[in-house]
């Protein structure tokens, strides 16, 4: 509202508008002394808030949320794919491990069979060799025993002959009679048998 100052000079009236008062008045409208009601919503606040919210809601509905959600969905999908790949790789690795273990078991079984066969062959060969060695030892022992028996028989017969000669000479010297060869031989044999029996 403008203020005006009216001045009457004689029959004329001079009117001056007070612009400073008008400015102060308009300023007081911008800054009300009482302030707004704490309960009743002000139209200007309602309009600005509604506009701001509607803009935000529309942006969120058509731009902001779809863009973010698309990225989230893509990442979750990629993570799920990664999990699926990891599961597949794990399963393949498990199959490989099982196959490897089967191969190792097969090789181990084959190795054991070969070791067992070699062991059996070795055992048989050892027994054969042992039998051969035992046979050779037995033959040699028999031969040695025969040789020893022959030597002993020869020694014994020599001893018997010597003992017969000695006995015959002793009897001849003591009795003056020469004993018969058969008597001397029997006596020597009997005494040698008695000596061997002790």
């Amino acid at each position, binding site marked *: 509202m403008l203020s005006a100052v009216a001045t009457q000079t004689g029959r004329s009236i001079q009117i001056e508008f007070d612009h400073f008062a008008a400015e102060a008045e308009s300023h007081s409208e911008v800054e009300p002394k009482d302030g707004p009601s704490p309960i009743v*919503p002000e139209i200007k*606040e309602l309009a600005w808030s*509604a506009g701001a919210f509607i803009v935000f809601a529309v942006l969120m509905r058509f731009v*902001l949320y779809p863009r*973010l959600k698309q990225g*989230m969905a893509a990442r979750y999908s990629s993570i799920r794919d990664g999990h699926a790949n990891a599961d597949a790789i794990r399963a393949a690795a498990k199959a490989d491990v099982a196959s490897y273990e089967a191969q190792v078991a097969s090789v181990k079984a084959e190795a054991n069979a070969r070791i067992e066969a070699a062991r059996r062959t070795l055992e048989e060969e050892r027994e054969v060799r042992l039998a051969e060695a035992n046979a050779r030892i037995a033959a040699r022992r028999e031969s040695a025993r025969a040789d020893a028996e022959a030597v002993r028989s020869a020694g014994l017969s020599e001893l018997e002959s010597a003992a017969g000669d000695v006995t015959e000479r002793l009897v001849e010297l003591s009795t003056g009679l020469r004993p018969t060869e058969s008597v001397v031989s029997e006596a020597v044999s009997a005494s040698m048998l008695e000596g061997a029996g002790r």
Partner: protein
Amino acid sequence: MLGLEFPVINEVVRWVDLFPTFNKIALIACEATLIGTVVFLVAGAADWRVAPTGIRNLAEIVVEFIEGLILETIGPNGLKWTPHMLSFFIFIYLCNVPGIIPVVYMPATARMAIPLFLAIIVWVIYNAVGIKHQKAGYFTHMLWPPGVPVFMKPLVGLIEFVSNILLRPFALAIRLFANMLAGHMLLVTFAILTEELVQGDSVLLKPLGILPFFMLLFITAFEVLVGFLQAYIFTILACVFIGASMASHEEHAEAH
């Protein structure tokens, strides 16, 4: 004696227009839209292939939080409402937070305009959803829940009409508005008390200024929680109302 001059509420919530029709509330509302938009634009521009960090992580946490809220209240069918509920939650939270930011010190929701507008939007949405899903049965189901005796139907119908159609949006708006205004008034109260005690003439009372100052700090910290909580409560109630509108009469009966 301490003469404490406490301003009336009108003075506390008054703010000089930055330019005609554009005041602090309008500024905060625009700033909330701007910050929310920029945060989500930056988050959306980040590389999705790598593990989210920083702003993208924050945005995804908020999205998942709201999706969890919707799944609990509406169910999987309600996930299409995620952007709308995100808008409610983020806008309200960003309008609440300036109440504790120095210089600004004004939650925009401590004025009735924003809570009322948002509550009206929720009212329109849940009624439209109810009509879309249940046709005319929406109003009969709402006014006369199952099991109401015939002679009680007029009274129950009147009560349910007043409760669901008239009072519910106002309750939603006033819950947010009153909580934020009360928090703002508490901050103002303890700030004025601290100032009066510290700058007062009485030397004996000056040290006592530390007590309201600590309360001011405590309530400021508490307002951080309240700002989040009020945004959460508004959003979850919006979800509950929409979920209730989507559920059919039979589903209501099964739930009971």
